[in-house]
């Protein structure tokens, strides 16, 4: 059994934002980086299935598209227990369809039984890469999965797909399949220090990007969003703020 998990190192914006000179992105000096929250759930789910159903030689392989710095996020997954990691060397920001085109040949070569993506990346909020990738790999797919019961010998899984309002759609999917994993499906494990140290020693395979075709969009301009009517800022220290909050509440509940 083999499960491939696509993981992204996401950018986290601090309290201040400045844009690059061409105004097409945020100045990287104002970014911190982390493993995408959804991908830690996807990695955990893959490890969990391997531990539950797996045999000797089964593998969880993580794949990521990015420059060398995204290896930090990949090593988090290795420290959690993933067996191998493959990085597609591509350091420019890309739309979700381009990312899917970059990942597809790597996943294809692995011919996994299951492919997991996160539902979305916290910085891009595209919620699109997984479904696009499934198409390029010609795999059945289910998006926004909160539970998986997989019977590898039957070539089928029964999954819960989470709709708006928390309604669950119980879906039967043929495997191999691609599932996009929603938060809350499990409790991702913490890697202990020893595992983190060991992950630092592990080799991450690097492959060159394949042909990408035309991007699905180009960013023309990035800017701070307009502030609606604008929140009225409650000034002063915590005591002043608390007093004002109580006044507003009393007035509005009248």
């Amino acid at each position, binding site marked *: 059994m083999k499960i491939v998990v696509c993981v992204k190192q996401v950018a986290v914006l601090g309290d201040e934002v400045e844009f690059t000179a061409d105004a097409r992105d945020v100045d990287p000096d104002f970014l911190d980086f982390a493993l995408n929250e959804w991908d830690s759930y996807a990695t955990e789910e893959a490890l969990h299935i391997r531990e539950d159903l797996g045999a000797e030689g089964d593998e969880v392989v993580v794949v990521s598209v990015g420059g060398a710095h995204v290896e930090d996020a990949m090593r988090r997954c290795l420290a959690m227990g993933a067996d191998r990691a493959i990085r597609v060397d591509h350091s420019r920001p890309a739309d979700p369809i381009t990312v899917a085109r970059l990942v597809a040949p790597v996943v294809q070569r692995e011919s996994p039984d299951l492919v997991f993506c996160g539902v979305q990346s916290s910085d891009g909020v595209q919620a699109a890469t997984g479904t696009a990738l499934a198409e390029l790999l010609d795999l059945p797919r289910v998006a*926004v999965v909160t539970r998986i019961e997989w019977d590898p010998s039957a070539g089928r899984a029964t999954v819960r797909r989470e*709709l708006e309002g928390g309604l669950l759609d119980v879906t039967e999917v043929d495997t191999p399949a691609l599932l996009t994993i929603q938060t809350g499906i499990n409790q991702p494990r913490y890697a202990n220090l020893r595992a983190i140290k060991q992950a630092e020693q592990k080799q991450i395979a690097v492959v060159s990007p394949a042909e990408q075709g*035309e991007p699905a969009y180009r960013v*023309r301009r990035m800017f701070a*969003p307009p502030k609606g009517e604008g929140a009225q800022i409650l000034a002063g220290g915590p005591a002043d703020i608390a007093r004002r909050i109580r006044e507003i509440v009393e007035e509005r509940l009248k």
Partner: protein
Amino acid sequence: MIVAEHLRGELRELTRELVTAAQQLSGPVTVAVIARDPTVFDVSFQGVDEIVNVPLGQEEFENDVYQTALEALIADRQPHAVLLGFTVNSMGYGPAVAAKLALGFASDVHGLALEGETVVATRSFYGGKVDAELEFPAERPVLLLVRPTAFAPAADGGNAPATEFAVELPPARARHLEFEEAAMGDVDITTADFLLSVGRGIGDKEAIPRFEQLADKLGAVLSVSRPLVDAGWMPNARQVGQSGKTVKPKVYLALGISGAVQHLAGMKTSDTIIAVNTDPEAAIFNVAHFGAVADLFDVAAELEKLS
């Protein structure tokens, strides 16, 4: 062309919003209704030029079925733009159609304009903190997933002609079996006048009792953002947002909630929104009526002191 959004026999309000979004672009607006019996859905809104009914052998959504139907419609009608809702269903097939046909594509679009012949879409990046204008490959149709509530709903009273469109469907590889309702909870947060809502900013589980007591003291009902439910700290009946409850209290007091799009979807029409967050750029401040850039624990301590 837009695809009507419906679930369990009910047309979603978002369908009307998609009509308004489509009107930002030039050309006739076609509404495709894909369902067992598409004629049960009344999509004859103002601004609709044509209704295409695509009858199926089944009622519920399956992504292979929708994908095949939409690809056939695109081949037949050759639209310049296809608009779907940014919903869980559309996430399951929209990006696949765009990847297969190499269309221009963007999701969570909340602004649309036409400049000459070119579609320009606005969407957010970096957790809603930054907006961006996008342009698309020339001479190719675009497929866009449109954010719910970003456009005003189209009104009743159109008189568009309807035609039927038959498609040959493949066996679905992911098949709907049944629905399971979300668990009922001990409280109904949708009927409260005053919600004290806490997010990941509260740090850990040990902080929950403190905010339960604070809610009691203030006469509020405690609600939460999704991560607190994911972590098992609170039952999901308390969750506000797209996959939780939609609430519209008189006062929504948000402590340590960043304002992710799926959270805002559940509370942004509250009468009065007050937000406390240490991050002055938090997206919640874009919808709040009153905001305080402060540590929520300091503010909570002062609220506790008020009699």
